[in-house]
C-alpha cells in the first residue's frame, strides 16, 4: 500500500499481514494487508482496527473494526458515540456513504479519522494534532508505527525501480501491445490515472503503480479518494500535492548517499 506519514513522507510498502499504523496514549490503529494478486508482492488493506482509549470524563474505550465488505457505521459494541460519560459525544461515528465511507470524529483529541472501502480494499486517513501524535507511552518503542516513522526500509518499494522495469518490459521486441500481465501498459495506466488525477504527483504515480501491478481499475479511485481526504484533512494546502523530490528528501537521501 501507499503511505503518507505524519511527516509527509510518501512511501510504497509491501507490509503483508498485520501492521500498526498509530499507537499513542489515546488511540491505536492496526491494519492488515493481503495480497492483491496471488503470488504477487502487491498487498492492499483489507482489515482495519481502531481503538480509542478511555479518556477522562469524555469517552469509554471504543473499538472500530472494518473489513472488506463490512464497513460498519458504529463501534464494535454497536454504539455510535463514546458511551455514557458526560462528554461521550466528543467521539462519534458518522456514516457518509453506507458501506463505503465513514468518518470518526474524536473531538476530545482533536482527531478526525476517515475510512473508506474502494473496490475490494480499505483506505485510511487521519488528521491529528502533533501533541497527540507525540503522546507516546513511556517505554514504548515507536519504531514500527508506520504513520510516525514510515515503513521499514526492507519493506519499501521504489517507484523509480518499478518504472524502470515497466519501461524495460515495454521496450522493442517485448510483444505487440507491451501490456503487462494485468492488461495495462505504462502509457494506458498513465492515461487512466490522468482522468482522475490530472497533476502528476505521487498520488498519480501511485495510481499508475497500482494499475500496472494489479490491473484493478478500482485503485484509480483509491488514489483519487486518498487525495480528496488529504484536501479535507491536511492543514497546509501547499502540501497537498507531493512530488518525488519532496517525498524522498528527508529519509532516502542519506541512505542513498
Amino acid at each position, binding site marked *: 500500500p501507499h503511505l503518507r506519514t505524519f511527516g509527509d513522507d510518501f512511501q510504497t510498502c509491501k507490509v503483508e499481514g498485520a501492521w500498526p499504523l498509530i499507537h499513542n496514549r489515546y488511540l491505536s490503529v492496526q491494519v492488515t494487508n493481503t495480497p492483491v494478486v496471488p503470488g504477487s508482492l502487491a498487498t492492499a488493506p483489507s482489515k482495519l482496527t481502531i481503538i480509542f482509549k478511555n479518556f477522562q470524563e469524555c469517552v469509554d474505550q471504543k473499538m472500530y473494526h472494518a473489513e472488506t465488505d463490512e464497513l460498519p457505521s458504529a463501534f464494535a459494541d454497536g454504539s455510535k458515540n463514546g458511551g455514557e460519560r458526560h462528554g461521550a459525544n466528543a467521539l462519534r461515528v458518522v456514516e457518509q456513504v453506507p458501506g463505503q465511507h465513514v468518518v470518526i470524529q474524536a473531538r476530545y483529541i482533536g482527531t478526525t479519522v476517515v475510512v473508506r472501502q*474502494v473496490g475490494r480494499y480499505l483506505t485510511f486517513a487521519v488528521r491529528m494534532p502533533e501533541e497527540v501524535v507525540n503522546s507516546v507511552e513511556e517505554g514504548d518503542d515507536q519504531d514500527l508505527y508506520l504513520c510516525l516513522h514510515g515503513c521499514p526500509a526492507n519493506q519499501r518499494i521504489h517507484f523509480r525501480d518499478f518504472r524502470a522495469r515497466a519501461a524495460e518490459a515495454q521496450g522493442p521486441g517485448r510483444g505487440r501491445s507491451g501490456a503487462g500481465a494485468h492488461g495495462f501498459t505504462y502509457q494506458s495506466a498513465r492515461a487512466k490515472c490522468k482522468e482522475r488525477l490530472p497533476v502528476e504527483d505521487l498520488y498519480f504515480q501511485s495510481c499508475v503503480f497500482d494499475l500496472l501491478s494489479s490491473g484493478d481499475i478500482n485503485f484509480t479511485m483509491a488514489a483519487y479518494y486518498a487525495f480528496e481526504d488529504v484536501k479535507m484533512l491536511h*492543514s497546509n494546502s501547499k502540501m497537498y500535492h507531493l512530488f518525488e523530490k519532496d517525498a524522498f528528501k528527508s529519509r532516502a537521501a542519506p541512505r542513498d548517499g
Partner: protein
Amino acid sequence: CKILRCNSEFWASTSSSGQEEEFCTALRAYNGCVRRTARTCRGDLAYHSAQHGIEDLMSQHNCSKEGPTSPPRARTPPPPLPPPLQPDTQERSDGPEACHYERSPPRGAAQPNYTHCGFFGD
C-alpha cells in the same frame, strides 16, 4: 507549562465549598487539568508536587478517581443524549471543556498544529 493555572482553578473552586462531594469533583477536575499539562510540564517541580498532592488529597478525602469532574467555574448538568447521529449535528455540545481539544483550557488561544497520515492502494 501551565500547572499554576490548574492550581489556581482548583483552589478557587474549593475555597467557597465545604462539601466533601464537591471537593472530590473539584479534585478530579484538578487531576484532569494536571494530566493535560503532562507533556509540557515534565520535570517541573510544581507539576510533580501537584501529582503527589492530588493522590494524597484523594486518599485523605476518600475520593474515587472515576466520577463527575465538572469544570470548577461552570458546573452544568450533563446534556441529554442526542438523537441518532447525522452529519449535520456537528454543533451539538460535546460535554466538558476537557472533551473538546481545541477548547481545553491549558492550550489557551494558540492553535494546535495538525498532522495527517494516509494509507491506501496496493
